């Protein structure tokens, strides 16, 4: 049952890894998210070094997103023009992120920054989602139908220069906006080992004002290339990509996602979002507690092994 992970240099139970991949895949199929934000912390909990967890998880997300991206492309659900602007930002952000990662690793602070990033981002996203889904559920109970607010509000964001037309999304906005969104998500992808769909999708809907029909396809398109960039750079500069680990998680994940997607069709949207919010908050709280609770031993060996 044990398999030696050659780059991580540790031996793990391959059934456990397949199961983890399957479990997270099930949830990601159910909620329509990539699952990187669950997988990376889980890998760290079972003893995979954080740097290896982040690098290998990026490779897993490439594989997990490619079939979805292709499917949306076939159904013509990708705004390529928007996708390329997001991607340009994403490549910029993730390349910087990998350099920052290497510096943090040398300084012995990479675990801390990964954990803090998770606590802050997941805490914020989880709380927003929870509030939103509770409101939606309450509203539905009152009026019997879900209603959405005004989609297209004009703010200072629309006064930015470099305006660009995105016919597919029916938008005329500054290219700086999607570039910045892409760069921010790319940075997080490199630091946290996530695809960033859970930030990208809300940002596309609420910040950019894109129609929901092209949001998921465009986000997947961008995620494939950004996580491919992260995988390449992490492997090249930090040697922290373990392909044996990534492929095991990937196989479990693809199978799990198929079941999750079927299960998801039987549940209502607000309930799903509520459950998802609780899950996201749960991970954030667990990581926050680990940061605050007095460690069993204040001393640790760190900074990566000397190769």
């Amino acid at each position: 049952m044990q398999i030696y992970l050659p780059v991580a240099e540790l031996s793990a139970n391959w059934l456990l890894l397949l199961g983890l991949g399957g479990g997270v895949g099930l949830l990601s199929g159910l909620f329509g998210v990539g699952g990187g934000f669950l997988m990376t912390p889980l890998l760290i909990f079972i003893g995979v070094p954080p740097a290896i967890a982040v690098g290998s998880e990026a490779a897993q997300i490439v594989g997990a997103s490619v079939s979805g991206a292709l499917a949306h492309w076939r159904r013509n659900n990708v705004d390529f023009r928007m996708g390329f602007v997001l991607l340009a930002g994403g490549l910029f952000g993730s390349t910087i992120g990998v350099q920052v990662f290497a510096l943090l690793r040398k300084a012995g602070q990479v675990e801390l920054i990964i954990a803090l990033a998770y606590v802050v981002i997941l805490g914020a996203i989880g709380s927003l989602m929870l509030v939103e889904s509770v409101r939606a559920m309450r509203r539905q109970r009152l009026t019997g139908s879900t209603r959405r607010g005004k989609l297209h509000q004009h703010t200072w964001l629309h006064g930015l220069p470099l305006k660009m037309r995105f016919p597919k999304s029916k938008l005329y906005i500054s290219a700086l906006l999607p570039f910045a969104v892409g760069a921010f998500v790319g940075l997080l992808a490199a630091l946290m080992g996530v695809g960033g769909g859970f930030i990208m999708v809300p940002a596309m809907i609420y910040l950019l004002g894109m129609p929901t029909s092209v949001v998921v396809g465009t986000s997947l398109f961008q995620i494939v290339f950004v996580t491919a960039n992260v995988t390449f750079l992490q492997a090249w500069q930090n040697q922290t990509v373990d392909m044996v680990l990534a492929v095991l998680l990937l196989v479990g994940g693809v199978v799990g996602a198929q079941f999750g997607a079927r299960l998801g069709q039987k549940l209502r949207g607000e309930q799903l979002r509520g459950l998802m919010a609780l899950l996201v908050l749960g991970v954030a709280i667990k990581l926050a507690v680990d940061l605050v609770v007095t460690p069993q031993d204040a001393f640790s060996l760190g900074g990566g092994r000397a190769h």
Partner: protein
Amino acid sequence: MSRAARAAALLLALLLACARDAAAQPLVADLSSHEISITTGFSGTELLLFGATEGEGDIVVVVRGPAGPATVRRKSRVLGIWINTDSVRFEGVPSFYRVASSRPLDQVGTPGMRQRHQIGVGAVSARPPEGTSPERLAEFRDGLVRAKLREGLWNDVPGQVSFMGPKLFRTTISFPPNVPTGIYNVEVFLVKDGREIGAQTAPMRVKKTGIGARIYDFAHRHAAAHGLVAVLIALAAGWAASAAFRRS
């Protein structure tokens, strides 16, 4: 040949050798194998060390993995959260350490002798940077030992060297799944009245073999190419896995 059979054969050969050279050498010992191969299914292993002594005494076995630098970090509380705030880099620290003895370590030899031969975790070499204060050194050295014990790479409870009759002894040395690769040094001491009256060293090697070794080499020697291949494998595996699932 199974490991046990091989060990038995070696033991027999050794006995014959002992009978011949008994007068010449106070101590003869050998390992059941001088090489550990980390294969894809590797989940740790054990080696048998056995030997014979001429005359009475205690046997101490010390196994050390390749030495290198080790950075020990200390966390302290900053604004409510625990952050690495201090570190000491030790040089010449064995990546792996095992000790085994026929009697409790404090009853074998003298403190000076144990320090000299790195017998017991307290005596394992770890050179601090110059100018480290004694209190700070003690704290960080203890931290290093605890971290190594947690990883299962050092042991503080000595293994048992058992005698079969007055002259033959044996012990097993266990290697965890995360055993570091490189050249190991196995030392066997015969100690009597606080002095070592015989010593023998045997080198040993831990290496990766098979596909795992090749992947590791590729990932470290051709990191950029490995990155490209990793992306391609991820793309292909993701596409293939979902295609296979859709068809079935």
